[in-house]
């Protein structure tokens, strides 16, 4: 499976500068907007009124920041691919150029800690996708957030957030990736807690931050292990310099250096994947993602489609070569059993996450939470493909999921905006089709993609994922494949359920108070931009992969992607796809039967189903397990430490040693001061006043006395002079 393309390292300052602008522009506008927000707050306090810049101004700055990024990203993409020279002859193993530009900010000018941009097919495609989706979401948000009191802050943070993701995607080394990774976590904290006066929003922000932090620590330890190993290898002369660059790590892993093989790399790569578990909400750290729905809907759309949760799996794709340093089909060189550990771990975690996310999505009632759980499930699919060795398949699914999931969230936002409620519960919706025709059609397109209905974008990518699992050597891959197909059916089921309960049937909301209004102009434009992306993807892949038509270089889309990423897998095959198609159709059929025609109530009310639903509703006790772990063993250890703190440190060290010691020293010096220094000073004073009192007697005030004294004094002087001249 490890068919690696040739990789070249090239320099191209123009491309690097343009790519740097992609990162810098949203950062600059974001910071400018945050400064404007500070001015707003200052003026509001000074004048004691609500001061706010014109929304047209701030909104346009925010959108313009992303607009700049889109333009730069388009130029970079076109230039990058035009210099690759793909032809019919070399399409199976093209020479891939990595355009890398580094800036050493350390004074020594060496070492792995530097800013850098690496343009590889993976990062360029991701950047383009991200910029288009993020731009549309910004455009959408200008209408969605209209009238919000902190409009400026929202756009400032959103720009900052997107800029961080650009930085992460384009970074050339693990160090810079980690810096932007943390910025991403911080910005998501700000955005999830956007309505921070609400207790649920601020606790959701804290939860997201802490869950991510667990992964971050793991990621950091992984980086440290790799770095220290490269230092060791440099000292023993096997490599030239310690490094954290993706390019060199990939290179060293592939040429097989002693000490940089799977026997060492399984642990660091596992730890780095631990970071991805936190960010990409894999089992068991998925609990923060549904809570993250507390943020405004455009944030959810951005968070779930192409930023944040994709960052983790994108990182997995970036360091993919560290998971698979050797040709896994050649079993003769596999001696260390740990070699199998990381890919197996990732694949199993991914599959279980997919299944668990799907089951949870079945039970959720809140429209946005259904979509959140579905994101977890789809992320599981991506992780599954990654673990199974299908880099291409996982990236393929990442692209299709990013588009349809952002579309779905934008639709959900339009619905929430339309019914003017903080949450849209499925049990209180229904019959929205006639009120919001545009949302109806776009959501239909998005849900068809999500469900993986044949010929839609999700179908092709999901099929590639399943195929990757089928071909892999993962332990129990047949079992995982069955689980994945079941999950595909579940996905289709809840997608159909969501659609039916939202748009069809009778309205279940309170008709007195809720009057759904059609979506606004900018919302409609944004919805159709992304919907058209989904349609384009679906048509393109249907013609390219399914029918083998219109392929310029003679191969289909998946094959191109595989060539660019350096990993091919078998092509689509209709016989293999039958089980998943059947699962999807059964899922949709069941949902229609149950929710549209209200059949099969027997099944719905069956105690076994109730039990499964109850467990899924409690999120499989994973969150509760984490809470238990946080509150019992961790708190116990904390209590023990607190006893040590109170008894030993406070009780003995502070109270006894430091306090008493200080008091004793102070007492002693006080006594010394009073008894010795004061006494000496007083003695001198007493003396002087004693002498003075005696001398005062001489001053009688009688003129004759003074005269007498003068005479006596003169007499004494004369006597002295006389005596001194005599002798």
């Amino acid at each position, binding site marked *: 499976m490890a068919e690696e393309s040739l990789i070249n390292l090239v320099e191209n300052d123009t491309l690097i500068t343009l790519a740097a602008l992609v990162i810098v522009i949203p950062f600059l506008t974001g910071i400018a907007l945050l400064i404007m927000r500070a001015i707003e707050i200052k003026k509001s306090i000074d004048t004691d009124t609500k001061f706010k810049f014109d929304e047209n101004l701030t909104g346009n700055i925010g959108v313009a920041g992303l607009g700049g990024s889109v333009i730069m990203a388009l130029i970079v993409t076109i230039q990058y691919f035009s210099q690759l020279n793909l032809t019919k002859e070399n399409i199976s193993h093209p020479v891939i150029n990595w355009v890398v530009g580094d800036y050493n900010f350390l004074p020594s000018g060496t070492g792995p800690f530097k800013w850098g941009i690496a343009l590889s097919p993976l990062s360029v495609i991701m950047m383009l996708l991200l910029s288009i989706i993020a731009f549309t979401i910004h455009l959408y948000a200008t209408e969605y957030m209209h009238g919000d009191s902190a409009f400026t802050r929202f756009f400032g943070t959103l720009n900052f957030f997107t800029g961080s993701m650009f930085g992460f995607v384009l970074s050339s080394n693990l160090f810079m990736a980690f810096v932007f990774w943390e910025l991403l976590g911080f910005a998501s904290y700000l955005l999830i807690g956007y309505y921070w006066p609400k207790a649920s929003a601020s606790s959701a922000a804290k939860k997201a931050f802490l869950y991510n932090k667990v992964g971050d620590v793991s990621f950091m330890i992984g980086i440290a292990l790799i770095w220290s190993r490269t230092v060791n290898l440099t000292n023993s002369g096997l490599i030239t310099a310690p490094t954290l660059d993706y390019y060199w790590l990939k290179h060293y892993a592939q040429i097989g250096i002693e000490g940089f093989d799977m026997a060492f790399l399984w642990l660091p790569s596992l730890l780095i994947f631990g970071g991805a578990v936190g960010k990409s909400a894999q089992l068991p750290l998925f609990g923060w993602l549904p809570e993250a729905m507390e943020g405004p809907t455009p944030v959810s759309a951005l968070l779930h489609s192409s930023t944040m949760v994709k960052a983790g799996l994108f990182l997995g794709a970036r360091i993919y070569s560290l998971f698979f340093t050797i040709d896994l089909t050649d079993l003769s060189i596999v001696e260390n059993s740990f070699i199998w550990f990381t890919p197996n771990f990732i694949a199993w975690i991914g599959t279980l996450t997919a299944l668990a996310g799907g089951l949870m999505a079945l039970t959720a009632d809140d429209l946005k939470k259904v979509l959140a759980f579905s994101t977890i499930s789809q992320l599981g699919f991506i992780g599954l493909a990654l673990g199974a060795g299908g880099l291409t398949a996982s990236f393929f699914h990442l692209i299709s999921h990013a588009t349809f999931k952002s579309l779905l969230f934008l639709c959900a936002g339009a619905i929430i905006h339309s019914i003017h409620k903080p949450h849209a519960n499925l049990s209180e919706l229904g019959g929205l089709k006639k009120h919001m025709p545009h949302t109806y059609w776009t959501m239909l397109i998005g849900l068809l993609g999500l469900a993986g209905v044949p010929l839609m974008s999700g179908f092709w990518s999901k099929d590639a994922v399943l195929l990757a699992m089928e071909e892999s050597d993962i332990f129990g891959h047949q079992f995982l494949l069955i689980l994945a197909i079941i999950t595909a059916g579940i996905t289709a089921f809840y997608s159909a359920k969501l659609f039916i309960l939202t748009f069809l049937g009778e309205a279940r909301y309170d008709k007195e108070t809720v009057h759904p209004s059609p979506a606004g102009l900018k919302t409609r434009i944004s919805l159709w931009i992304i919907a058209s992306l989904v349609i384009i993807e679906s048509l393109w892949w249907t013609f390219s992969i399914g029918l083998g038509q219109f392929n310029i270089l003679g191969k289909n889309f998946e094959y191109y992607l595989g060539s660019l990423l350096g990993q091919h897998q078998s092509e689509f095959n209709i016989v293999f796809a039958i089980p998943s198609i059947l699962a999807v159709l059964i899922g949709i059929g069941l949902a229609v039967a149950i929710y549209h025609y209200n059949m099969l109530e027997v099944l719905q009310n069956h105690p076994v189903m109730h039990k499964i639903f109850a467990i899924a509703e409690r999120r499989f006790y994973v969150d509760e397990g984490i809470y238990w772990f946080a509150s019992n063993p961790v708190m116990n250890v904390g209590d023990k430490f607190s006893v040590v703190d109170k008894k030993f440190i406070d009780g003995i060290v502070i109270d006894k040693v430091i306090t008493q010691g200080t008091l004793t020293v102070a007492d002693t010096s006080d006594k010394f001061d009073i008894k010795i220094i004061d006494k000496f000073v007083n003695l001198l004073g007493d003396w002087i006043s004693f002498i003075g009192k005696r001398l005062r007697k001489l001053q*009688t005030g009688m003129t*004759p006395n003074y005269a007498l004294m003068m005479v006596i004094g003169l007499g004494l002087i004369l006597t002295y002079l006389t005596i001194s001249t005599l002798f």
Partner: protein
Amino acid sequence: MIDATWYLGLSGFLFAGGLFGVLTQKNAMRILISVEIMLNSANLAMVAFNGMFGLGIGNLDGWIFALIVIGVAAAEAAIGLAIFLSVYRNFGEITVSNIFTLKEQEVAN
């Protein structure tokens, strides 16, 4: 020619008498007079010494000193009388032993 010793003796006698007057008398006018006597005894001594040791015809240092002292004495008498007048106006008397405001006053500590 009378021996200079006699002059000096007279001068010493006058000085002693003046000093006695200064120390014993209580009336300020009397003290002033005694001071004048002491000054004049000094004048006498200086003139006598000029006669004893003044070599050459033109040496008149002692005389000149005496003249200066007379001038000083005149000035002193004028100032002293003015002070007495002022003291008299303030205290109603010029008895020196009754006027001791220069003494340290008892103050409440």
